[in-house]
């Protein structure tokens, strides 16, 4: 369908200007297909993108743990195939089944979101991917946030607050600290888009869970072939650190057109880090951030 941008221009041509709704969300299909050769056995084989899933406890439910699940067909011809998805309570999964068209020999994968309710206990839970031919069990390890291996990224899975959140698709602020730097799946929960077009600044704040020494922030803005950072990314921003209750600007970025920018600064001991976005590269002038890493 036509973008609202288009509607606005038509209106100008026809009458006086008017306020228009923001443009439609972009596509964020998660299906991934891998061609292959069927063994001709007629079997449907469950697949998982990882041999285990780590699901931190007490994180924002808008950013659940993610794993790719899928199935491969050894049938002789293409068909619609179904795999059942079962998970141990009290965890919940975003699908109870995966049903898809599946050419012979192909594997189809899709995203599965696993939610951990606050009352869940630490430990290993079972995720079962079941077809008539086979059951694949994937352990889900529920760990407390403070015991999560963050690989040195102090922002990983920490609480995030934003000045606003666009509601025409899924743009949760917590997605900037979900450990996924890729722009793929934009609008499907993988990045934050503020709600105020052409209004600045926009802020996104990550609480570090206590005072931490920080000297580097890496920001990943939206950047794909369809949505290049040079048109859709953040252009100007300040990096601020909260030191003894006071926000101070520790780095500034201006005129950015790249998908990710590293800012190094003199070490400070901060309780929180925030990005103050001041301008973007054109397309409807939103702030679009995929990931913020703090070291």
């Amino acid at each position, binding site marked *: *369908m*036509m*973008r*609202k*941008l*288009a*509607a606005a*221009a*038509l*209106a*100008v*041509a*026809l*009458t006086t200007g*008017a*306020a*228009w*709704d923001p443009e*439609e*969300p*972009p*596509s*964020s*299909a*998660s*299906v*991934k*297909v891998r*061609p292959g050769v069927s063994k001709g056995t007629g079997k449907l084989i469950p697949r998982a993108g990882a041999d285990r899933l780590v699901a931190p406890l007490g994180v924002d439910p808008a950013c*659940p743990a993610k794993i790719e699940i899928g199935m491969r067909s050894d049938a002789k011809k293409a068909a*619609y195939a*179904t795999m059942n998805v079962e998970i141990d309570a009290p965890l*919940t999964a*975003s*699908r*109870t*089944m*995966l*049903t*898809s*068209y*599946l*050419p012979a020999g*192909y594997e*189809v994968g*899709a*995203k599965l*979101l696993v*939610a951990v309710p606050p009352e869940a206990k630490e430990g290993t839970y079972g995720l079962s991917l079941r077809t008539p031919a086979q059951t694949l069990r994937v352990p889900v390890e529920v760990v407390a946030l403070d015991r999560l291996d963050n690989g040195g990224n102090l922002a990983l899975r920490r609480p995030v607050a934003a000045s606003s959140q666009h*509601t*025409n*698709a*899924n743009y949760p602020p917590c997605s900037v600290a979900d450990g996924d730097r890729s722009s*793929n799946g934009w*609008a*499907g*929960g993988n990045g934050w888009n503020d709600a105020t077009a052409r209004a600045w600044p926009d802020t996104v704040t990550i609480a570090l869970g206590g005072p931490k020494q920080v000297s580097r922030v890496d920001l990943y803005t939206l950047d*794909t*072939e*369809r949505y290049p950072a040079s048109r859709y990314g953040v252009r100007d921003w300040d990096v601020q650190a909260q030191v003894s209750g006071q926000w101070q600007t520790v780095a500034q970025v201006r005129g950015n057109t790249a998908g990710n920018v590293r800012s190094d600064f003199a070490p400070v001991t901060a309780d929180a880090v925030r990005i103050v976005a001041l301008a973007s590269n054109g397309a409807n002038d939103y702030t679009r951030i995929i990931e913020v890493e703090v070291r």
Partner: protein
Amino acid sequence: MDHPSRRSFLGLGGAAFALAFSTNLADPWTAEAVARGGDYPFTLGVASGDPLPDRVVLWTRLAPKPLEPLGGLPYNKISVDWEIAEDEAFARRVRHGTTWANPEYGHAVHVDAKGLRPGREYFYRFRSGGEISPVGRTKTAPAPGSSPEALRLAFASCASWQDGYYTAYRHLADENPDVVFHLGDYIYEYGIVPMGGNRQTPVPEQFRVQCDTLDRFRIQYGLYKSDPDLQAAHQRAPWIVTWDDHEVLDNWAGPNGPGGEVTAEDFLVIRANAFRAFWENMPVRVPAVESPDARIYRRYTFGDLAEFNVLDTRQYRDDQVCGDGQQVDCADRLDPARQMLGAEQERWLLDGLGASRAKWNVLAQQIAMIQLDFDPGPAQRLSMDLWDGYKAAKDRLITGMIDREVSNPVVLTGDIHYNLAGELKANFDDPASQTVGTEFVCTSVSSGGNGNPATGLPPGGSDPVNPHLRFSSYQRGYVSCEVTRTQWRADFKVVPYVDRPGAPVSTRASLVTLDGVPGLQAL
């Protein structure tokens, strides 16, 4: 499609059946359907479609839990009884049968109820597991060769669930049209936020991700079709539907998904899932979808009054050029090799138009055909997704209609979220060129939110950069048409808001085109 349905009821005589059915006759409309819970399987209502003079497709889908991929049912086939009668009390039943709701098809039921009389109203309902569905009203097409005096139709498009309430569908239902055309974007593939956008209604976790797999498309249809206003619109009239882009993915084109995001192999799997879910959820008489290829373009004849060519402008088109969106001076849009309908559908369309004996020859399709210049200045800025982006294909069609002296071409269009009325020109850059026909574009039912009543071109006005455009408005609604032997009248029905239920309806504009006089007049 044929089902094992023409046998008599399993273990039930007709009289007993009629008696059992006659207990639920009060108010047939939908309020009660949404209030039910538990094992009630008809939570998605009933529908009819693709009316012919002697038959109509009756549809339902069993789903006690409509927001689950299999509707909360086990992976078993389930027996469903159906009946169709001349009266709402089912005293004059004319056909009945039993069919299966199969899990492979999401427990959808498509019954082609045959042996009906032309041009008359019928009432139908289903029964399964001791539960009886709401009663639907439908109507057959007039007899072949007959000369109907009038046809009342409505058309609509673009109903993003999270953008607002379907009040427009409710008002459309209240008109009891002879037939409804839906021109696509019946669903949107997008993920839905926890509070349901403008509806402020909680939506479960499994809706966050975008539609791509069949299980995900199924629950999207489940959510959309749970809406009581949409159910009412289906329940009151037969629909003839086609798809646009959002039944699959935004601005898809032939084998191409949105540029750079989805590989060709991924896209064909998504397309196969989307087409299958469409088939499961729509009252269509086309073969069950089993692959990424599905022919849905087809033709309906209403006596000698009107013939409707229902088009598919997505599946066979070449990719958008110049990066899609709006472009100035995009030479590639003129490439004569580029297709909008595909060679086969284009030939089918022109052959059909040439052979038609109908007074009004209608193209029920998706995207604007009149030229739409989005630049208020001297530059010409055109949308690469519309017919303007496929200029040679558009010219072949318009020239083809001139050459065949097609009687009263009328194009019905959706997609753009605007009400528009315009004149089809032999050359849109020359206002003095021949006017070939008329295009009516319906706005969205809900997509885009409330809209704006303060903008638009008054009926009969003229837009300086698009002189063939005679009316526009940016409000939500649908278009109601009365087609007679002397004129086609289009009433543009609008609602003032969709971010809460219950908006009143009003007529923003009424435009008429006269038999034999292409072009528009405002009433």
